[in-house]
C-alpha cells in the first residue's frame, strides 16, 4: 500500500473541492484509505492518519472509528504520537464511551513520565475530559504533581485538581494540604491557578472558609464576604485601595475595576464603598468603549433597587445613553431610566423619554409606551400634564400602545372633569390631520361623542378655543367611519359617538339620523347591529334617547395597577333619571331587552356587560336590570368578577352556602362522637361528623378507611346512597389505595343535606381489589349519633 498522503496534502485537496458533494466524495475516499491503513496496524503512519481523521472530524464528518487508534497513539513512546493521540482523545472521546476508561492507565503512566511535557499533556487531557472514575483513580497522581518543584506542572495540576473536585467533590479534602502551600507561592501563574482551586473549594464547602480568612484576592473575597461581616470589614480598605489605584487607560484595568465593583456589590460593604463602586460605574458610562458602557448599565440595573440615591446622581449620563447606537445599550438605558423616575424628576425625564419614544426602533415602542404610562400615572404633577403626556404618546407611537391603554385613558379623561373642554379640543385637532392611529382615534371619537357640545361652544380655558361647527365635527367622524384604515372597533366608536351627539348637537340631528340609517345595512355585523339599534332609538324610543345618551359619570377604578385591566363595574350604568322613567309596558321580549342592554352597555369602553346585578353597591345599572326582568346574561362577555351568587348557577343552593370562603368547619371539638360504619375482612371505615355553622341542615361526614391486613387494597371506591328526603354530595377521595397494616388511610368527605331533620340513614357500597381478586360489599349504616342530624 502506498504511503498515506500527508496532512497538508489532504487539507489542500479538500479545499479545492467546489461543491459539498465533491468534498464528501474526497473525504469518503480518504476515510476508506485510512481505515485499511488502520487495519494493517502500521505504526509509522498512524499519527498522520489520525491527524487527517481529526481534520475531517472538524469539518463535521464522523470519525469515531479512530477512537481506538488514538489510544494506541497515547501508548506510544514518541511525543508527536502522544500529542495527536491526546488531542484525538479530547475531540473524539467523551465520558459516555467505555473506551475512555482504557486511557486511565496510559494517563497514569504519563503523569509519572520523565518529561514534563508529557506530564503536561496528560494533566491537560485529564482536566478537560476526565470522567469521575478516572478522576478518582488518578487524583493521587494529580495531588503529587501539585507539590512538584516544576511550576509549569503545578499550574496545570492546580486546574486539573479543579476539574477533579468538580467531578468528585468528596476528594476535596485530599487536596487541602497541598493548597495551603500553594498560597505562599511566589510564582504568579501558580498563585493564580491555585486561587482558582481555592475558590472552587470554598464555593463547595463553607467549612473551608475558616482556613482562608486572610487571603487578599479579589474574587475570593467576594465569596468569602458574602455573608460574613468581619471579613467584609477587613476587605473594605483593600477594595478601596484597589479601586482608586488601578489605572484605567487599558481595558485590562477596566476589567479589574469591574471585578472590584462586582465584589463590592456582593459583600456587606459600608455605604461609602458602595457609593465608590457606583461612581466607578458612572465613570464607565462616559467611556468611549461601548462594551464598558454596556457592563456598567447592566450592573447599575442590578443595584438601582438597593442604592437608589447613588444611582440617581448619574441619571443624566444614563439618559444620554438612550441616544446610543447599540440596541442592547438603549434597552438597558431605557429600563434603568424607568427605574429612576420619581416625583422630582418626572418632567425632565418624561421629556427625554418621549423624545426617545419618537426616535427609537419599533421593538422598543410598546415597552416604552407602557413604561411612560405607568410612570405618568404614578408621578404626574398635574392632570393637564398627564393628559398631555398621554396624548403625546398616542400621537407619536399610537399604533404600538397596548390595547388596555384606551380604556385607561378614557377613564382618566372622564375623571378630570375640568379638563374636558381642553381635552376634546386637543384630541379633535390631533385627528383632524391624521386619523390612522387607531388608539388615538378611538379615544378621540369617544371624547368627541361625550363632549362635542363643549367643542362647538368654544369653552376651552386652558388654551385658545377653536371655532368648530357641528358639521365639521360630524365630517371628521364620518371620515373615520369611511376610512379604510379604521378597524371595526374604531368604527364602532365613531358610530356611537355620532349617535351621542344627537342629543348634544342642535342643528344636525337629521344628518345624524341619515348616517345612522345608512349603516343599518353595513356588511360589518357589529356596525349593522349598532346602527339598527340606534335607528330604533330614533323611531320607537325617542323618548328615552336623551336620557340614554347622557353624559357618563365619573368611573370608579377597581384596580390601580397602571395599564392593567380595569374592571368596569358601574361604568355602564346610567344615572338616576332612569328611575323616574316609566317601566316599559309589558314584559320585554328578551332580544329587544338585550338590545337595550347593549345600548346601555355601549361597547364603548370594554365590552363588559355587568353580570353582577344585586350584589354590587347600589348602582342604577342594577335597577335597570331589574326593570328589564330576569334576563339570562350568560351570553355577554363578562370581565367583571362575578360574586358567588350569580343567578344562573344550577347547583342546589345549600352547597353554595356551604362553600362560603370561610372554613366550614369549626374546631375539632364539636362534640359529635364518631362511629365505625363498617368493619369487615380487615377493612374498617370510620365516620366523623361536623355541623355547618352557616346552614344547620348540612352535616359534613369525613370517612376514613383503614386496612389491617397484610396486603394493600387497591382501586378502592366508596359509594353512598341516602333516602329521598336527603341530598348527598361526595367529594373526591384522597387516594384509591388503602395501605396494609394500618399504615395509612383514605379520607373522603361527604356532605349531607337534611332539611327535614329526619334520622340519618345511609347505604354504602365498597369495591376494591385485594389479594388479587375483586371484592365488593354492601352495607347499611344506622348507628348515626343523634347530634349528627337533629
Amino acid at each position, binding site marked *: 500500500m502506498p504511503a498515506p498522503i500527508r496532512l497538508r496534502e489532504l487539507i489542500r485537496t479538500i479545499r479545492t473541492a467546489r461543491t459539498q458533494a465533491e468534498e464528501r466524495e474526497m473525504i469518503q475516499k480518504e476515510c476508506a484509505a485510512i481505515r485499511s491503513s488502520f487495519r494493517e496496524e502500521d505504526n509509522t503512519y498512524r499519527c498522520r492518519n489520525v491527524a487527517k481523521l481529526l481534520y475531517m472530524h472538524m469539518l463535521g464528518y464522523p470519525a469515531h472509528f479512530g477512537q481506538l487508534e488514538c489510544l494506541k497513539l497515547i501508548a506510544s513512546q514518541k511525543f508527536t504520537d502522544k500529542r495527536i493521540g491526546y488531542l484525538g482523545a479530547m475531540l473524539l472521546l467523551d465520558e459516555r464511551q467505555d473506551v475512555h476508561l482504557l486511557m486511565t492507565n496510559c494517563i497514569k503512566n504519563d503523569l509519572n513520565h520523565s518529561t514534563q511535557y508529557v506530564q503536561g499533556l496528560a494533566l491537560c487531557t485529564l482536566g478537560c475530559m476526565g470522567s469521575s472514575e478516572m478522576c478518582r483513580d488518578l487524583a493521587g497522581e494529580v495531588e503529587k504533581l501539585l507539590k512538584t518543584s516544576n511550576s509549569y506542572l503545578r499550574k496545570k495540576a492546580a486546574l486539573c485538581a479543579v476539574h477533579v473536585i468538580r467531578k468528585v467533590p468528596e476528594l476535596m479534602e485530599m487536596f487541602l494540604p497541598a493548597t495551603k502551600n500553594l498560597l505562599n507561592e511566589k510564582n504568579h501563574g501558580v498563585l*493564580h491557578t491555585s486561587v482558582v482551586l481555592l475558590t472552587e473549594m470554598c464555593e463547595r464547602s463553607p467549612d473551608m472558609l475558616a482556613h482562608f480568612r486572610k487571603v487578599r484576592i479579589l474574587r475570593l473575597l467576594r465569596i468569602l464576604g458574602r455573608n460574613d461581616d468581619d471579613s467584609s470589614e477587613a476587605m473594605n480598605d483593600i477594595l478601596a485601595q484597589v479601586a482608586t489605584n488601578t489605572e484605567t487607560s487599558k*481595558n485590562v484595568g477596566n476589567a479589574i475595576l469591574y471585578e472590584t465593583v462586582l465584589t463590592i456589590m456582593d459583600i456587606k460593604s459600608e455605604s461609602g464603598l458602595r457609593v465608590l463602586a457606583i461612581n466607578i460605574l458612572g465613570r464607565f458610562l462616559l467611556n468611549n468603549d461601548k462594551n464598558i458602557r454596556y457592563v456598567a448599565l447592566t450592573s447599575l440595573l442590578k443595584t438601582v433597587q438597593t442604592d437608589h440615591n447613588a444611582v440617581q446622581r448619574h441619571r443624566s449620563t444614563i439618559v444620554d445613553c438612550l441616544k446610543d447606537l447599540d440596541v442592547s445599550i438603549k434597552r438597558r438605558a431605557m429600563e434603568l431610566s424607568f427605574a429612576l423616575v420619581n416625583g422630582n424628576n418626572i418632567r425632565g425625564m418624561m421629556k427625554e423619554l418621549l423624545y426617545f419614544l419618537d426616535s427609537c426602533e419599533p421593538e422598543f415602542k410598546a415597552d416604552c409606551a407602557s413604561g411612560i404610562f405607568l410612570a405618568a400615572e404614578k408621578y404626574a404633577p398635574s392632570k393637564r400634564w398627564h393628559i398631555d403626556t398621554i396624548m403625546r404618546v398616542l400621537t407619536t407611537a399610537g399604533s404600538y400602545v397596548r390595547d388596555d391603554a384606551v380604556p385607561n385613558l378614557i377613564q382618566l379623561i372622564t375623571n378630570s372633569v375640568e379638563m374636558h373642554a381642553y381635552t376634546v379640543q386637543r384630541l379633535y385637532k390631533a385627528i383632524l390631520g391624521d386619523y390612522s392611529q387607531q388608539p388615538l382615534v378611538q379615544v378621540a371619537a369617544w371624547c368627541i361623542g361625550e363632549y362635542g357640545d363643549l367643542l362647538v361652544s368654544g369653552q376651552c380655558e386652558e388654551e385658545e378655543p377653536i371655532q368648530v361647527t357641528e358639521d365639521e365635527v360630524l365630517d371628521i367622524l364620518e371620515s373615520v367611519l369611511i376610512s379604510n384604515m379604521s378597524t371595526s372597533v374604531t368604527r364602532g366608536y365613531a358610530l356611537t359617538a355620532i349617535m351621542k351627539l344627537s342629543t348634544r348637537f342642535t342643528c344636525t340631528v337629521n344628518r345624524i339620523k341619515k348616517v345612522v340609517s345608512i349603516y343599518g345595512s353595513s356588511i360589518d355585523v357589529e356596525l349593522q347591529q349598532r346602527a339598527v339599534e340606534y335607528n330604533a332609538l330614533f323611531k320607537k324610543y325617542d323618548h328615552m334617547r336623551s336620557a340614554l345618551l347622557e353624559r357618563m359619570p365619573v368611573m370608579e377604578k377597581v384596580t390601580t395597577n397602571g395599564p392593567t385591566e380595569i374592571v368596569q363595574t358601574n361604568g355602564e350604568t346610567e344615572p338616576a333619571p332612569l328611575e323616574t322613567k316609566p317601566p316599559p309596558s309589558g314584559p320585554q321580549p328578551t332580544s329587544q331587552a338585550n338590545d337595550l342592554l347593549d345600548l346601555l352597555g355601549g361597547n364603548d369602553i370594554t365590552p363588559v356587560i355587568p353580570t353582577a346585578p344585586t350584589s354590587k353597591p347600589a348602582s342604577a345599572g342594577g335597577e335597570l336590570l331589574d326593570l328589564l326582568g330576569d334576563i339570562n346574561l350568560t351570553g355577554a362577555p363578562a370581565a367583571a368578577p362575578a360574586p358567588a351568587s350569580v343567578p344562573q348557577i344550577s347547583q342546589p343552593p345549600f352547597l353554595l352556602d356551604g362553600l362560603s370562603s370561610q372554613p366550614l368547619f369549626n374546631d375539632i371539638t364539636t362534640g359529635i362522637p364518631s362511629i365505625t360504619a363498617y368493619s369487615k375482612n380487615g377493612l374498617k371505615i370510620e365516620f366523623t361528623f361536623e355541623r355547618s355553622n352557616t346552614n344547620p341542615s348540612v352535616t359534613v361526614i369525613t370517612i376514613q378507611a383503614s386496612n389491617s391486613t397484610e396486603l394493600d387494597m387497591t382501586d378502592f371506591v366508596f359509594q353512598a346512597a341516602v333516602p329521598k328526603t336527603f341530598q348527598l354530595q361526595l367529594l373526591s377521595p384522597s387516594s384509591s389505595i388503602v395501605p396494609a397494616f394500618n399504615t395509612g388511610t383514605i379520607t373522603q368527605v361527604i356532605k349531607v343535606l337534611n332539611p327535614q331533620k329526619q334520622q340519618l340513614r345511609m347505604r354504602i357500597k365498597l369495591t376494591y381489589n385485594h389479594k388479587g381478586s375483586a371484592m365488593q360489599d354492601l352495607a347499611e349504616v344506622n348507628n348515626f349519633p343523634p347530634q349528627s342530624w337533629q
Partner: protein
Amino acid sequence: MGLSSPGKCCKAGGGLKIRFILIQNRAGKTRLAKWYMQFDDDEKQKLIEEVHAVVTVRDAKHTNFVEFRNFKIIYRRYAGLYFCICVDVNDNNLAYLEAIHNFVEVLNEYFHNVCELDLVFNFYKVYTVVDEMFLAGEIRETSQTKVLKQLLMLQSLE
C-alpha cells in the same frame, strides 16, 4: 500585555466557567471547537450553528456580548474570524474579552502574522495553544512570554 499581578484575573467560582471556545469564519466553518462541557455530537452541531447565526448578524455598533440561551457569549471579530467564548451570565465580560485578545496575540506571535490558513493547516497546533492558555474551563496562563516559550519548546520536540 500579560497581566502580571496576582489575582487580577481570577475567574473562579462554583461550577464551570467557560463552556466552550469556538473559532468560526464568516461562512460558518469551524476552525476550532474546544468543549469544556459534555454535549452530544448533534447538540454540538446545533450550538455551532446557533452561535454562528447570533454572532454574524451583529456589526460594529453592537457590544461584544450576546445573551445566548441561558449563557452569555463573549466574542470578538478579527478579520474574517469570530473568536467566541461561552460563559455564565454572571461572569466578568471585560475580563474574557481580554482573554480573547491575549489568545489572539499569542497566535499572532507564534505563527508570525497569523491568518486563517495558518489555523487551518496547523489546527493541532492551535489546540495546543488553547490548552496552554485555558484548562478545565478556566483561564490558565495569561503571560504571553511564558506561553510562547512553552510552545517553542514543544515544537522542538517534534
